């Protein structure tokens, strides 16, 4: 995968390195700004309140 990307980057070595950095930054930005904020609510450790749990065993108020 990575060798495929490297082969398809145009230009001399220095230009290719620059492009690589831009791609890397874009990937990290996508993760931090879009993916992680959406994944986060699916994980339990941000549940800090006591509340009626959405399970079958708890009667509805």
């Amino acid at each position, binding site marked *: *995968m*990575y060798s495929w990307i490297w082969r398809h980057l145009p230009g001399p070595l220095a230009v290719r390195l620059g492009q690589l950095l831009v791609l890397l930054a874009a990937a*990290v930005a996508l*993760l*931090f700004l879009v993916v*992680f904020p959406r*994944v*986060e*609510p699916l994980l*339990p*450790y*941000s*549940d*800090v*309140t*006591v*509340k*009626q*749990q959405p399970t079958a065993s*708890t009667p509805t108020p």
Partner: protein
Amino acid sequence: MTTADRFRWLLRGVGQLLITAGVVVLLFCVYELKVTNLYTEQQQRTLDTQLTREWAEPPAPPTARAPARKPGQVQLAAFDDGAGIARIYLPTLGRDQVHVVVEGVSREDLKKGPGHYPGTADPGAVGNMVVSGHRTTYGAPFNRLDELHPGDAIVLESRAFFYTYRVTGTTVVSPDALGETDPVPNHPGEVATQRLLTLTTCNPKYSARTRLVVRALLETPLAKGTGVLPPALLGR
């Protein structure tokens, strides 16, 4: 391409994918434990400035309606959802342990700071004021709540008062222990006479299997004035 070449090509692809997945998981940890703190720090700075400015002026009529009272709760003020309502100090855990409490306990509210359950008592009021906060992410305001012991001070600063509460006990409860938020804890509908403060957070750290609940009782309200500080905050 020979079969061996094909196999090697496939193996390399899988290896690269696994390494990438590992890096993504590591980055997620960095995001949760570091980047979320930056967001909360910035929000807390804004809220703190707003609160200082707000308190310097005469009280404005609230724009929001008072939330529905829990049965047994005597009276309530109205706060805007997500707005700063008080400062909370945990002096026994360090001089830097001060946070702006926001109104509401939605996901977005709690990202800004510890959240006050709408419908529970206001700072210093008769009843049970319930505040929840993150344990490990988003500034982790209640990270060290387990280090509070009976007798330790928790100070709430409102517009006109410092309220010094003393911890009476710590319990670990199930996530659905709604009774902890009753005006008289675990006695739903009973009319409150005491002035309580209840802090909740997730427990154990990095998990949400149970909730850690710290209960405190109001000791003394102290009217604010120039140079006036409650004893618990002296020497800060």
